[in-house]
């Protein structure tokens, strides 16, 4: 469903991604690990459609379409959703408004009617309960005054409501304590399914104990230097990244 080919991208003229190849098939959970500065955030940003990143070479195809030609909102409506590392606070916009607007935008893109209010509220309540979030949360402004854990839970809540085809989770574990991590991981695991892909970008192996990936990629200096199964993450945890780069530098 997602095919990244020979992707090169730069920020402010500096080349960060130097030829990334990655394919995610429906039903698969992928994790990208890598040291600081490897290009993890840049890859996330390019997938999300952030301004300020220039793709200089290569392609990204999402469900047969050229992702790089799609506007930010088109990507989301097509089912590619990003869970952000630093969710933005949006004062004055209530969570319930955001959720309804987002859900209706998606339905509209599919040529469906708006969701009726009672059906919407039923859906939201169910997902809130799953994320162990209080109903009062709906009337609070998006992320405003939320703790780090609440913000991340909110990102996952949005995923549960919007049911993406491909969920991108950018450092979803950062700033989470053990309990919050469990709730977030349960939410993500509930998204797993035969026709859905998940791509996690993370610094730490810890997350992968909770959300077990099918494929692990190690990103170093803008390239995927090694891919493997979940045991690769454990190797990285134990041995660091240097052993992976020694061969490729030569």
């Amino acid at each position, binding site marked *: 469903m997602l095919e990244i080919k020979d992707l090169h991208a730069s920020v402010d003229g500096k080349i960060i991604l130097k030829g990334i190849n990655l394919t995610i098939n429906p039903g698969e959970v992928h994790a990208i690990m890598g040291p600081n500065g490897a290009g993890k955030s840049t890859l996330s940003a390019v997938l999300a459609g952030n301004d300020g990143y220039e793709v200089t070479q290569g392609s990204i195809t999402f469900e047969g379409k050229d992702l790089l030609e799609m506007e930010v909102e088109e990507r989301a409506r097509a089912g590619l959703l990003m869970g952000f590392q630093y969710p933005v*606070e949006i004062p004055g916009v209530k969570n319930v408004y955001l959720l309804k607007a987002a859900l209706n935008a998606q339905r509209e893109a599919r040529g469906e009617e708006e969701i009726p209010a009672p059906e919407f509220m039923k859906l939201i309540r169910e997902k809130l309960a799953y994320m162990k979030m209080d109903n009062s949360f709906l009337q609070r402004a998006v992320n405003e005054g939320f703790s780090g854990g609440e913000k991340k839970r909110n990102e996952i809540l949005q995923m549960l409501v919007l049911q993406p085809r491909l969920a991108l989770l950018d450092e979803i574990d950062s700033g989470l304590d053990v309990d919050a991590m469990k709730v977030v991981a349960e939410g993500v695991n509930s998204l797993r399914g035969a026709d859905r892909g998940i791509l996690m970008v993370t610094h730490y192996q810890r997350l992968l104990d909770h959300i077990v990936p099918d494929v692990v990629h190690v990103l170093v200096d803008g390239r995927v230097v090694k891919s493997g199964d979940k045991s690769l993450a454990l190797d990285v945890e134990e041995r660091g990244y240097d052993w992976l780069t020694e061969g490729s530098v030569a």
Partner: protein
Amino acid sequence: MSQVQGFLDQLGARQPLDAEPSWIAARRQAGAARFEAVGFPGRKDEEWKYTDVSAIARQSFTLADSNELSAEQCDAFSIGIDAYRLVFVDGIFNSSLSDVDALGSDVTVEPLSRALADNHEAVGGQLGRLNNVDFSPFSALNTAFMGEGAVIRIGRRVVLDKPVYLLFVSRHHETPVMSHPRILIDAASQSQVTVIEHYTGDSEAANLTNVVSEVFTGKGAQVVHYRLQEAATSEFHISSLHIEQTRDSHFRSFNLNLGAAIARNDIVAELNDENAVCDYYGLFFGRGRQHMDNHTKVHHNAPRTFSNENYKGILDDRARGVFNGLVHIKRDAQQVRGYQSNANLLLSDRAEIDTKPELLIYADDVQCSHGTTTGQLDEKAIFALRARGIDEAMARGLLTLAFAGEVMESVTLPSIATRIERAVAGKLPDRFNLQDLVEAADA
């Protein structure tokens, strides 16, 4: 012929009332004399520094001679609200479109012309007491033409079951017309009333509405006043609202401006006795080349009086806004609290706001604050919304509405809130059905 004289010449075209008390002629003359003496305000006048009214002065306005409006047209202009209604077309009262039949005996809601004919002495004492001809050249002009408008009296302890709705419809004419309505609200002790002044009309109308309203609150009375100004963008809207508050009274103003080429609103409250509370909420939303000017004053004339003001300005395109808010605390008016806030959102690089908070404090034991901010929409927040599939226009609408939030949340009449939301956020409310959503969430 001078511009001033051109306006005053229209006095000859005025339809005399059935029975005109002698005092009213004297006041009109005083108004005309004052206006003739001072003329239109210029940019050198501190109170009018940022608002150029020469476009009004240059125009030749006549007086309307018809109040024709079909019931269907009237319904289309009015907000859907169950209320006691008086309708004015280009300043002329239309009784067939009005509906005040169900009023109780302790309540009066009637056109000024009728109040003058029935018992002019009851009106004479209050009319002009809070707004004399010196207040502004437009007040003087209004006084010169004084004769129609509305009189609302609420008896002691009466809690009016429905709002009073004053609908002012402005029609399109080859030669634009002017009207000078005069509104008197007298809420006796412990009474409660909500009054809506609504200004709207044909989209091509280019008339001048120059209204003066005076509000008297008895002890413990609670008055809520809405100005919903939705005039066409070629119209001129000048208003002044004056409030006199006695002990334990509570006055709340919602000054909501969406329309007019030039809108200038003055609000002045006199808090004359202990525990009088005054709240000013304002929202102005200008586009194109609209110019919106709000001048507010609160005079704390007695100890332990309280005021709170929150004005939000949203300006797009080349629109221009002015906010000038004065909090004045008189000598020995101790233990007063006065808060003021003005926040502005500029949606375009060419929009402009002049904001000027003023505190004049002559007592030492008071709590006062004022703050003003001007900013733009948060691009990161727009991105975050788009990343959830919400298109950019809607994201901007949502954030603009959020900016207006604090004021909008105070608006307790849903039919008014919905109109403002629609105007401010464009297509948003239709898709959103905010009210629906709020009810569902509360259920």
